Each structure stands twice: as C-alpha cells, then as structure tokens.
C-alpha cells in the first residue's frame, strides 16, 4: 500500500516537472505574438528573460548560416541557464520562435520531453495560422492555443 502511494507521488512529481513556467511565441521580427507565464505577479521578469534570450536565438540562427538553412534543426536546445530557470528555444522555418522557460530545479527534465513540448506547440501554432480569421503578425488570441499552453504549464497552486 505504502509502496503504491510513493509511486504515485513519484509519478506526480515527474508529471509536474514536465511543465513549463513560461511559454512565448515570438514573431519573425522579434516581437511577442504570445507570452504567458505562471506566476502572474512576476510576469515582467519572464518578459525580460524571454526578451534577452532572443539574443542567443538570433546568434544560433545566424551561426548555422544560409547554406544549412534547409536542413537546419528547428530545435535550438538550451539557450542559456539562469539562476532559477532554463530557457529553451525553437525556430520554425518561417523564423517564428518558440521559447519555453522551465524551472532549473526540475533536473529530471529530459531533452526529449522539451522537444515534444515544442512539437506540440508548433502543431498548435500551425492550427492558429490556418485560421482564416487570423492575421499573421497579430497577437494570438486562440482559445485552443491557450488551453494547449495551459496544459503544458505548471498549474499555479
């Protein structure tokens, strides 16, 4: 009995660790299309984090060079670690950037899980773009996208 409980707890914590604390979608021209973070009182901090991470994203994109642009991998990996967070990046072929910020304390987080989060995000973003009423370049105000992002975020307890 006790054994199962601890396994449950373990599963729960793993599930929890998979979650992001901030998810942002950045337009080609480097302005935010969508940015959402968990602790609302500290929203601005995440704005700063994501904003500064763009330097690294740009550097990584330009480092790959034009010749490689076709077979470039979309996932950029860890952009940079800060004291409390790890920032991951992803660039679509149309140069739209996704940034996911996760808590550094979640050491159990695997690269694969981050990749799958980005893939999900990309799929959902594609759905948004397919909406004929969405103007590319406008901020994203899609409920479906919202709920998908919420599912990936740590629930504020």
């Amino acid at each position, binding site marked *: 009995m006790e054994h199962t409980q601890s396994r449950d707890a373990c599963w729960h914590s793993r599930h929890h660790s998979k979650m992001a604390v901030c998810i942002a979608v950045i337009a080609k021209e480097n*302005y935010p299309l969508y940015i959402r973070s968990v602790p609302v009182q500290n929203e601005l901090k995440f*704005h700063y984090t994501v*904003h500064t991470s763009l330097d690294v994203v740009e550097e990584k994109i330009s480092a790959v060079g034009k010749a490689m642009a076709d077979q470039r991998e979309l996932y950029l990996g860890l952009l940079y670690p800060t004291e409390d967070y790890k920032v991951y990046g992803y660039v679509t072929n149309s140069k739209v950037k996704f940034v996911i910020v996760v808590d550094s304390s979640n050491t159990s987080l695997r690269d694969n899980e981050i990749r799958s989060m980005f893939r999900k995000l990309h799929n959902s973003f594609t759905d948004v773009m397919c909406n004929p009423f969405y103007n590319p370049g406008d901020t994203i105000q899609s409920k479906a996208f919202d709920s998908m992002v919420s599912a990936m975020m740590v629930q504020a307890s």
Partner: protein
Amino acid sequence: MSVPDYMQCAEDHQTVLVVVQPVGIVPEDQFFRIYKRIASVAQVSIRDSQRNLYIRYRHHYLPENNEWGDFQTHRKVVGLISVTTCGSAKEWPQTLDRFHGQKEVFGATLYDSRLLVFGLQGEIAEQQRTDVAFYSSYDDCPNVEKRVEDFVESIFIVLESKRLDRATDKSGDKIPLLCVPFEKKDFVGLDTDSRHYKKRCQGRMRKHVGDLCLQAGMLQDALVHYHMAVELLRSVNDFLWLGAALEGLCSASVIFHYPGGTAGGAAGRKPSLAQGQGQAADAGKRHRPGAQEVLIDPGALTANGISADTSSEIGRAKNCLGPEDIIEKYKEAISYYGKYKNAGVIELEACVKAVRVLAIQKRAMEASEFLQNAVYINLGQLSEEEKIQRYSILSELYHLIGFHRKSAFFKRVAAMQCVAPTIPEPGWRACYKLLLETLPGYSLSLDPKDFSKGTHRGWAAVQMRLLHELVYASRRMGNPGLSVRHLSFLLQTMLDFLSDQEKKEVTQSLENYTSKCPGGMEVLTLPDGLKLPPVAFTKLPIIRSVKLLDLPVSLRPHKQKGLLENNMSTKSPFIYSPIIMHTRGEERNKNIEFQWVQGEVCEVQLMVYNPMPFELRVEHMGLLTSGVEFEALPAALFLPAESGLYPVTLVGVPRTAGNITVTGYHTSVFGVTSDCLLEGLPSVITSGCMVEVIPSLPRLQLSTSLPRSAHPLQPSKEELSSSVSVQLFNGETQHLTITLENIGSEDLETLEVASKTCNTKEKLFGEFLSWDLEEAVSQLPLKPGQSVTLTVNIKVRLDFSGGENLLQDLNDDGISVTGLPISSPLRQVLKPRAETKPLGSESSKTDYNHVKLSSDTTFISQFLKLHVANNKIKNAITTIYITTPDKTHYTYRIYTGARISFLIPVCCPPTRHCKYEAVHSISRLVKLLKNRVEDDVQAAQRLSADEVVLTV
C-alpha cells in the same frame, strides 16, 4: 585584490604599469592636462633593438593590487611619475619628502621614478637631476614627452636586466618561490628541499620570466617560457599559477594573432568611473607594428617545442596557440582560477579578456558563456559604485558581442543600481542617462512617428516599464518637462496596452506634472545632444474622419450667369477616360467641389472617439491649416467615457483668399498641447482636405413686409428662397415692401428682379406682380450697412369664367404666387424677420367681415345674401370660419361662380366628410350653407349662439 580592472585586455600583459600621481596641491584640470601628455607616450621603441615597450598609465592604483605583481608582472607598478606644484624654494624640501613618501608606497616594485615640478624657479631649479624635472608653469613644459620617453627607456633597462637575470638562472641555484599575497601563510614550514617544492619554484619562475619577456617585447621567448611553465606547474598541480601560465600563453598568442588589439578601439574602451580619462587616450594610440618580431627559423623547430635553451627558439611562431586553442586555454585557466576564492578578480578579468578575444573572433555564443560565468563570480561585498561599474561593463561586453538585448538588460540593472535605496545620494542623472542608452536594446525609439504605423508591435510590457522608469528618473532629476514628454509618449504609444486602471493612473500623474510644467510641441534637447521629438496625442481623442463642410446655403457663393461661358473654356481638352487612377494619398489632396469664402465662418466636421474609461476633456481644439491665413476658433469638448463616434465641428475664418489645406488639428489634453497632423494619421478617413477660398463677397439681407409663409416652398438646391404668404380677394391690391440690406463688407452693385407664377395655368392669372426697380437701382451701389427698399404691387385679377377646372385647381389652397426670386448675381440673404412684419393691412381688411352670430342663425343667410347682392362673392371664393365656444374651428369654403356654386367643407365635425356639394343658385347655396352650419353648430356641445364667430 578586490577591485577588478574591467578594462583589461589580453595585450595589457605586455605593458608596464606606470602610476602618475599628483603630489601636494595640484589643480585637477592641470594635472589631467599633464597626465594626458604623459599618457600619449604609450609606446616607445627602444634604441638599438627592434623591440617596443608599451606603457599603461594609471593615476590611481591600489597598493594591494600591486602585491599581485609577482603573479602577473603587468600588475606591478614599475614606474612612478609625480606631478607637483612648488611655488618657492622654501616648499622644496617638503615637496621632496612627499615625493619620497609616495615612492615608498610602491617602493618594492618600482624600477624608477620621476618628479615633475611646476612653478619653481631659481637656484634649485637649475640643478641637474635625473629624477626631477623643473618647469616654470603648466603651460610652459615643451619637453614633457621627451622626458617621459627617457624615463621609459630607463625602465626598459631595468626590465631587461631583470629579465636576463632571471632567464639565465641555472637550475642548480636556489630559486625563490614567488607567491601571491594570500598564499604566503600556506607555505610556512614547508619542506623547501623536496622535488615537488623545487618544481613549483621553477615553474613559477618560468612563468614570471615569460611575463618579463612579454613586457620586454620578446614574444617568442615569452611563449616558450610559458609553455615550459605550464608543463612544470601541471606536474605539481599548482593550479593558480598554472592558470596564470596558461593565461600568459593566451595573451602572448592573442598579441601575435591580433596585432590590432582586442580592446575594440575607443568604442570598446569608454573611460569607466574609477579609471578616469587616461584610458581613452591610450586606447586610441594603441597600435601594433605588425608581427614584425616573428622571424621564422625552421631549423630550430623541435618536436615538443620546449627546450631549456630558449635562444634557439627566438623567432618561432610554432609555440603560438591557434585561435581555437586560445579559447580552450582561457577556459582552462579560468577553471583553475575558479578553484581559488581569493582569485576572483583574476578570474573575472580573465573572463573579460577572453570575451574581448571572442568578440574579435566573432564567436558570440562562446563569449556569452564566458560572460555568463563572469556574472556569477562572487567578489564578496561590492560597493554600490563597483556594482554599477560591473553591470555597465557587462552591458558593454554584451554589446560588443552583439547581444543588444542582454546589454540593455544589464545597462538597466546598472541604472537601477545608481538609485538603489542603500545609496545615500542617488544618482538620478546617471540613472536617466543609462536608461536612455538601453532604449535601442528594447527597440524603443522616442519618436512617436515610429509608432504611427498600425498597431504597435514590440515588447510592450518591458517597454512600458522602461518608460515609467524614465519618467520617474527624469522627475527625480528635477526636470518635469522631460517627465511630461516621456509620460505623454507612454500614453500615446502604449495606450492599447494599458489597463483601465493604468490609464487612470498615468493620466492622473500626467495632470500632476503638467500643472507645474505644461507640455508642448517643442523638441526637447538633452545636454548630451539627444533630441526628444514632440508627442502629439493623436489617440486622445481618436479621430476617425475629417470632413470639410460646405457653407450654409445662404452663404454659398454662386457663379454669375454671365461668366459661365468663360468657364466652359477652362475645361480639360483631353478626352474623357473612364480609368481613374487614384490612390488614397491623392484622394486626401483632391479638391473639393465647393468653395469657402474669405471672412466667413467655415466648418470642418470631425468624427471623434474617446478611448479612455473616463470623461475626456479636450480644450482648445482647433484646426491647423496651411495655405491662406486662417483664424481658428478653438472649441472645448467633453467626451463621455469610451464614447462611440461623436461628431465635433471645428470652425474658423479664412482671412485671405487662395487655397487652404486642413493639415490637422490642435488639442490640449491633460495639460499637454499637441498638434496632430493628418498626414501622420493614415486611419483617418477624409474626403479631401483642400478647398478654395474665394475673396469675400457682399451679403444681402432681405426682409419683407408680409408674414412668412407657414409652408415654404421647397427651395431647389441652388436657390435661396424665402416665402411669404398673403391671401387676397380677387381684385384686391396690396403692396409688398422688400427691404434689402447690405450686411456684408462689400459694395452691392447690381439688382435684378423677376417673377414667376407656379402651380397654376398661366393664362388664367396673368401678371400679378409689378414693380418699379429704377428707384432702387438708383441707390446702388449699396454700401455696407445701407439698405434699399423695393415695393412690389400685388394685384389679383383672376378670371373665374374658366369653369370648374379652375376651381378644382384652386382647391383649398387659393392661389399661390410664389417665387419672387430676386435674381442677383450676388448672394442674397433672405432673413424675413418675423418680429418686423407688418400685419396691419391684412387684419384691418378682414375686420369688417368678422361677424358675431346672433342666436338666430338666419344671420348667415342675410349675410350671404348681402354679399351676393353686392356681387361681393360673385366669381369669388369665400371662406367662412366658425369658431364655437369650445374653440373648435369649422371652415367652409364657398366658390360662387356664374352658374354654379360649391360648398366645400374644409374643416368640419367628423360627421361631415369632405364632399363637394354643388348648387345652381345662390338661394340654394345659402340654404345649404345655413342648414349645414346649423347642423354643425348644434353638433357642437352646449352651443351658445352668441359665441359663434363667423368670419368671411
């Protein structure tokens, strides 16, 4: 060592450090003038050798940093130049004492020193001393540079001798152990005879010799020594010194690879707060004469590149690290430094140097890793100033590697540090200046024009924060004008992103600021030359459309008929094309059909919208125009909270003739006046903003003696009309007096009158109206303020013999003679004045037909008979009005023709339907009427016959 020199770069390893200090009282500006001249001697080529000596000057150096001089010799103060003022011989001994005192501070490491004495003349000044130079004044010292060069050469001699001294040390001799300050106590009681200890001594000494070689301009020797040192120190795990040896290797390689230096020119080396002006000067002068000392000697190459006999190694580039290796070795060195808490400054400086190298190599990602590491190096308790310095340098370095956002982030942190609550005297000015520098990093420009293109796309949350900080900093700086400008900018550009609560707060504080310092449209120029363009509140309120309005009909200009033909010829000779090329921009400038008139009040209608969640007070709202002189008459508006579209009419008077373009509007909101130009507002819909203003025209006011018609005829679009009505009996004559008054400012020259009857068949009526124009015309031209009267005679002469058709036509309207269009080429103002209309003649006429009915209604028949007998109602229309006591009015109309008469109930009790009843004799008519009236009167409640009024 606690204070890092963030300005250091790899090539500083080859410099020798000279401290220049004032002794006694030296005016600061004079000192820095001399300092600059001294610092200009940054590189001296030594006679009889191909070597160069590089000098780094400091006017301030901590003696505790000097203690690290054995660790890295470029940290050692080897020269001292003292500058002093000495007015008289009496002060001389004291001055000399001070100089010696100062020498003692760096005593252990100094190779040589000089004293520059200014102001002393006489016997003492004439003695020849190598270590003292006398100048009569700060302005008269032509050979300072020469003196300094000599001084540098003497330093070189000492350096060279030390180098040779150390380099030729035989391994058999007892080598002293060099150590850094914090190590000293660690080696107490250690076995000095062990192999391990000896190797450590050797390794450290090799490294030291490498440093000396590098300083003495022998790059290749230095490389060799460093390599050897690395080998030796690695074997004994002397990590701190191994790090230093590796760094030395890196420095030497960097100097070899990048003769232009890694400091990045003057831009990368701004003088920091602590280090003063000297830096900038020598950074620019820093110049490498190429890798001239590299003379390849292939014969001397050996497999491992390390040989005890360094003389054979001279001129080899083999030992030099490749660009990739430099970074690897820097990483390694830094990781070794990181093992020692007390070497934080060394580690930090190494990081900075590595970043500069990477910046040259354009490897931003790796550079950012070094910087990231530098951020986390803990230097213990830093003073606020040191923190500011650290953050600014981080910002600069991030800028150097192209990470502008990160750079802006740190700059902002530095700015915030300037005004940290722990600082007793917050530096708001510095804070503000630093904040301004962060603007490009946040892609924020302070020009509202950049925001006019559609919705703002940017990091609104972050930008808003920055703007708020700018507002606050400028307020604390004591510059409310700047605060107002920034706050206006915030409100204008970030309006879409502000919550309702924030909108309220921002406007409230804006109003607070403007109460002290109203905002305007002038460009604000900051002391450092930055210009803050004006901010126009184009969103408070939002304008949706601008429409120029035509003048009211009575004031519209009309073309004179006679001129119309001329006008035809001005039409375009080109064939009409259905393809109209037009763009929005052209539309905006297109001409408007109508014209405005000089001196008249002209109107422009704006559709406005208040986006704020509270009532918006717009004051002094007026038009901005170009072209003719225009007097705008400002208006004040109160727009309800989040109003929908709201029409606002702005008025003004053109004062001259020509073309006028409405370019925008002027408002004053929250104490900020703004001029909003339409060209900057692409969302505004307009149907053309340019209109022709024609010279002022006379104005004519027309009044008549007759009352105004209750049912004026529909005026046609182009015509002005004023209706008067009069009812006349057939055959009656009446005079209509028309008064024409010139109420304009121009003379009135011509007057034409024409008449026309309408609604009827002409043959039946003939001419009703006649007038004599001559008298009126004789008074022309009519000066402003004058009036002329024109009498029109109305004579009714109807022929009723036409029969029923005519009566049918007349029906119940009588005859309308309308029009009386006063055809004048000039404009006419028809303003019948109700209060002046003379009613007299008409009322007196009807008086005698006004009869009160007695109780016996037979009166009616008598009355009618009388009229018929008198032929009064023969061939005429008679209207009988009956007023009952309860104020009900009945109206009958009788048409009496030669053979047939009609009785037409016009307005009767509801039982009577309007039906013609035809009779063939007057007696029948009278009887019919009598019956009818009696019936109707009885039908009225509680009739008292006395009160029935019969009017014909």
